[in-house]
């Protein structure tokens, strides 16, 4: 029977692999080490600026563990969505770190880079040809949107990883990729059950989260011709049909249906069986090959510059009605800003009352006691950083003294910093949640190989 064993060392490369759990994983004789290094969860800035949310030192820590493990067993290492956002420069950063590790350790071998960042002109042509369509809940876009985005990436499927491996690469560093494709690539290549490969990949893509003990960070996946087996990396860690099947709900709009570039995975007929305390076997996963290959697009653009100010308030008069205070200071100061001749189109601002209603939208339930104190965060967004700073400075004296009741002695509120305003830099927004139809898996993907001798 064809089988493929995969060591999935951590849900997000760069967060810190557990070396003990990883070593246990190596003794389970994996055919590949596969790990995801990207996500859009932390917001648009990483994609817009082509940066990674983890430190270089931690990336090297995790990459070194993976590469040394791969070398020890003579198995390949697949890393997908390099550098949080998976832009070309992040693939290059990962390659630079990997090559550094190779030099330091005296390793030799072929390293593949797979790029999936997109040229806006190519996408504009696709848009004109009607080959780009929106997903449910996507923002409305025009042809110009592709130029407005500072970076656009397309999510790759499993095929580019398989190709790079077939071309002799022992380390494959991919740009933005679906979380599952990185893990599903090797079992598909080895002829295992395709539905099980995808479903198993989805279960383990967050590492140990599909088990009952997340200390291991990673998890072990075995795919065969009928199903897949999930096993914990630490001997005392448990894994149950409940923990495995419940993970299909996590961060997923639809727990039974997953769209991949090459087709659709369905899991509603899956059967989860406890094999031993550490392992669960799953059968009944299905995969339906799509006639049209598609890739999801992600894009983000700059929308302005921000300056923030934080002030602490415990004043009882303000605490009695924090929202009125915020409404009044907003109207009062906005009048001054307008008087300075600043166009309303060039700026906006927002108050958040931490300790009151900053995190949970909507009205505060009646009968909620007045808070002891709140942290009021003022965020100003403007066309330029200088304008955002200037508007924050117009607010400054009022953040310090604006009274809830004008008939009492002037209050002074609690600033933690001097200067009180903090230029935050550019701010970005996601603009694309769209699908592009492609001529197969490689049309929008580029490969580069480096042989280290």
């Amino acid at each position: 029977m064809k089988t493929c064993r995969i060591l999935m060392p951590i849900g997000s490369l760069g967060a810190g692999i557990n070396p003990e759990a990883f070593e246990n994983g190596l003794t389970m004789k994996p055919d590949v080490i596969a790990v995801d290094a990207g996500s859009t969860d932390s917001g648009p800035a990483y994609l817009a600026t082509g940066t990674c949310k983890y430190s270089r030192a931690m990336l090297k820590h995790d990459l070194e563990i993976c590469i040394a493990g791969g070398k020890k067993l003579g198995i390949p290492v697949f890393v997908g969505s390099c550098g949080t956002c998976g832009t070309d420069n992040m693939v290059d950063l990962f390659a630079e770190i990997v090559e550094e590790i190779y030099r330091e350790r005296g390793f030799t071998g072929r390293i593949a880079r797979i790029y999936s960042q997109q040229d806006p002109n190519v996408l504009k042509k696709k848009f004109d040809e009607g080959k780009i369509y929106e997903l449910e809940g996507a923002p409305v876009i025009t042809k110009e949107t592709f130029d407005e985005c500072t970076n656009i990436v397309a999510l790759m499927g499993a095929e580019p990883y398989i190709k790079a491996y077939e071309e002799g690469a022992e380390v494959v560093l991919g740009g933005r990729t679906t979380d599952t494709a990185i893990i599903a690539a090797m079992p598909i290549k080895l002829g295992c059950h395709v539905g099980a490969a995808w479903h198993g990949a989805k279960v383990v893509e967050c590492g140990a989260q599909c088990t009952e003990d997340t200390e291991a960070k990673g998890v072990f996946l075995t795919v065969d011709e009928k199903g897949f087996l999930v096993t914990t990396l630490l001997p005392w860690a448990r894994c149950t049909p409940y923990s495995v099947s419940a993970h299909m709900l996590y961060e997923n709009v639809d727990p039974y249906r997953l769209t991949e570039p090459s087709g659709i995975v369905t899991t509603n007929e899956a059967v989860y069986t406890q094999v031993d305390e550490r392992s669960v076997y799953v059968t009944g996963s299905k995969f339906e090959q799509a006639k049209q290959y598609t890739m999801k697009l992600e894009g983000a653009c700059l929308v302005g510059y921000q300056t923030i100010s934080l002030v602490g308030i415990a004043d009882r008069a303000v605490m009695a009605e924090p929202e009125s205070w915020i409404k009044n200071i907003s109207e009062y100061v906005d009048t001054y800003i307008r008087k300075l001749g600043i166009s309303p189109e060039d700026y906006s601002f927002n108050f958040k009352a931490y300790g009151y209603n900053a995190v949970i939208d909507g009205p505060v339930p009646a009968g909620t006691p007045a808070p002891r104190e709140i942290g009021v965060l003022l965020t100003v967004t403007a066309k330029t950083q200088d304008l955002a700073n200037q508007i924050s400075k117009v607010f400054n004296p009022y953040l310090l003294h604006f009274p809830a009741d004008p008939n009492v002695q002037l209050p002074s509120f609690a600033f933690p910093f001097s200067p009180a305003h903090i230029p935050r830099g550019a701010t970005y927004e996601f603009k694309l949640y769209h699908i592009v139809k492609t001529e197969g898996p490689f049309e929008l993907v580029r490969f580069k190989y480096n042989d280290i001798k």
Partner: protein
Amino acid sequence: MAKVKELSKYVRSKNAGPFWVTIEIFCDNKENYEKIKESPNITKEKVAELYNTNPALIKKFNVDNLLVIKFSYPRPVPSGYRYENDMHSGQQYIRLAEMEV
């Protein structure tokens, strides 16, 4: 009357990509699961109202084998927009947990 949080084991929320949020109500017995599942107050329409989103786009899943009721809804603004209050939407479950069943 009882609240969702009183009839469930736990409630959690999380972003599902930058444009969607998903909330799950985990129950530990069939009786409470059925109560929440069938409640006229815990519906797509009510959740849409609660989270200021389009009721036509909300998805509800009754996961009988796990005793989980799951709602997924598109965010009115994408994650990380200029005045974001919860990047990962991890605290948004609170309002659903406070709903009367």
